[in-house]
């Protein structure tokens, strides 16, 4: 076995991975945070740096935390759905603006509509690390006791809202 085989091996791992990705549809991998207390944070608000926001303010409510950024193309896809959800008053949505420029974030909400009851500004991505965010967008469902019940990785789709989020929110609200 010589070291010159290494590139070939690496390449075949890549190919196998791609091939498996093509053929199979593996189940969702659950986040380790689901079922645990939501990590706390103290962050400045997006629109007003002098005000802060923490998850404790929402204790007693079922709410969503949506992690987004103005540089994120996928966020642009899901944004209209969030606006629609907020218009229908399904659940309060808190926005976590992630590693973004403040003015870009504000600008985005002004242009595309603001679905958030509150917007936190996480410029350094510190809260994101606590919440196990490894890309944007991600959306968490948090129950009345402050426990994370579900995590959506990537863009929310109409199916996800209908089949997963709305039933779960109803259940958590005890309806």
């Amino acid at each position, binding site marked *: 076995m*010589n070291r010159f085989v290494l590139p070939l091996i690496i390449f075949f791992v890549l*190919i196998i991975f*791609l091939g498996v990705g093509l053929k199979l549809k*593996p189940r969702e991998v659950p986040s380790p945070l689901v079922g645990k207390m939501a990590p706390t944070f103290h962050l400045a608000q997006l629109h007003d740096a002098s005000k802060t926001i923490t998850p404790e303010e929402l204790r007693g409510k079922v709410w969503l935390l949506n992690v987004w950024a103005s540089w994120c193309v996928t966020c642009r896809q899901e944004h209209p759905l969030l606006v629609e959800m907020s218009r229908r008053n399904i659940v309060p949505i808190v926005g976590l603006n992630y590693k973004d420029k403040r003015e870009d974030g504000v600008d985005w909400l002004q242009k595309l509509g603001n679905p958030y009851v509150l917007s936190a500004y996480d410029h350094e991505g510190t809260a994101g690390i606590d919440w196990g965010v490894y*890309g944007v967008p991600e959306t968490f469902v948090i129950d009345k006791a402050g426990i994370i019940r579900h995590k959506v990785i*990537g*863009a929310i789709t109409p199916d996800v809202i209908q089949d997963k989020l709305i039933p779960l929110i109803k259940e958590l609200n005890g309806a």
Partner: protein
Amino acid sequence: MIPEIGHFSLILALVMALALGVLPITGSLNGNAQLMALARPVARGLFLFVATAFGCLAYSFIVNDFSVLYVASHSNSLLPVHYRFAAVWGGHEGSLLLWVLMLTLWMFAVTIFSKRLPEEIVARVLGVMGLISVGFLAFTLFTSNPFERLLPAAVDGRDLNPLLQDPAMVIHPPMLYMGYVGLSVAFAFAIAALIGGRLDAAWARWSRPWTTIAWVFLTVGIMLGSWWAYYELGWGGWWFWDPVENASFMPWLVATALIHSLAVTEKRGAFKNWTVLLAIIAFSLSLLGTFLVRSGVLTSVHSFATDPARGVFILGFLGIVIGGSLALFAWRAPKVGLGSGFDVISRESMLLVNNVLLVAAAGAVFIGTLYPLFLDALDMGKISVGPPYFDAVFAPIMALAVFMMGVGPRARWKQASLAEMTKRLLPWLVASVVLAVGVTFLFGHWTAPVVGGVTLGLWALLSSLAYLVARVRDSAGVGVWTKLRTTPRATYGMLLAHAGIGIFVLGVTLVKGFESTSEVRMRMGDTTTLDGYAFRFLGVQQIQGPNYNSSSATLEITRDGAKIATLHPAKRIYTAQNMPMTESDIYSGVFRDLYIALGDRVSIDEWIVRIQHKPMVNWIWGGCVFIALGGLLAVSDRRYRLAITPPAQH
């Protein structure tokens, strides 16, 4: 009839490609001169048939033959004729055909500029390229045939994507593909060398001009793409770390490493295996990039699901080409010697660091680009890995690479003295820092990243100058002019390209540090100011274009009361697809751009206007032009013309 001729030509081309891929290589292994002699004529025939097919498709576009499905979905009778021609590569099928055309064009070039190469090398190089074209022709014919008929014919076409109706878009894909596909020549030389087991200085010397020319095309292609994104997308950004951009950037980074590594292999006989591996990787990334972009895998993995045949074909082809060449590498590389040794401080070690940095940068881009794809392929959701990741990883690596760029050329081969280099370079480094502080001071406020970036940019410029100064000073007894004139063009090419990097870095740093944006609502007669410029809104006019309706605004720009320009940013609605487009207008200059985009209409006579002041933005593309010119200058060096003669010819 014409589309059928095109289709038939493509089938004939596939047959010829098969012949080219099998016969000459077999001949080279058995020493059969007749089979080897087939390589040139078959390669030229292949080019002729692919060109015929391409011509037939172009003809169908120009005469608006909407009975061809591909024409109907990418053109329109109202589309101006030059865009109808460019629409040939406006979609997946035509892009592939363009790719194959470029590939055969490179093969044609090899048949012409290989007069003094040994026959078996020509046979193998053309054979390998023939095999690659087999894959692409089969892919085109079996899964993406551009000549498919639409019966009954469409009354009119769906029109070309308005984003692509632009002069830069007409030349951007051909340039980029010339670069992508040009790397196949270096790849074919590498494979030919591996087959023959002959990895020597001659091989490196043959590969160098081809690699450099391909790299020049790639540079220009990427630059045009960036420039196009800047003025056409209407955001004023010039690089988005978009998967499509990354797909072209990764081969560029590796090809840059390859150019430097080839220099070591030619001059010192070292890095042979590494150079071969780089040649394979550079072309593999071109293939991967083309396919990822063309199959739409990256923008949406679901295109695999809609056409599984394409996805499987792609994967199979990648597996055979890349896997096959890496297997050949694993088999042959151990027999290749290591070449001469070198010291920790030497030109070789500097170039090694350069290679490691460039490959690491390509690796970082690779991971950032494919990570969302893997996640999506595994059905774990859609994720954007955005600029924060790329900026954080890429900037430090490249900063180091740019710094080394100033040091490396000053080191001697085999063994260099750190003390002597420090003595010679330190004054220039200090000058860069002092000047950088001065320049940023001139711009007003200054921050550490800006000073750092400007220092690096100046360092790249000044260290290139220092190289020339030292060269002249070290040659006692010879006149300055004589010394400058006898300096090889390859050296000037290198210095020019390095200076281009400096210009590029300056542009990027200053535009990032000092650009400003203002978004305002404006009525007729309103005036707004930005960075000392006054913008007066003179209203909006309706204009009828050939295949669009336009709302064109007029803004007058003044500075200190003196009028400097009138701009017409517009919003267009392309009628065929009812698609809105923002057409920004730019007052462009060497030291700044004033960039105006017309936003939405908010009330009957009020519009949102987005104004941007971008200092030094054109230095970004200007730097790229210098880089490309440097490459051209290096290729024109006379030693390549002389050195084509193989060392031992009987």
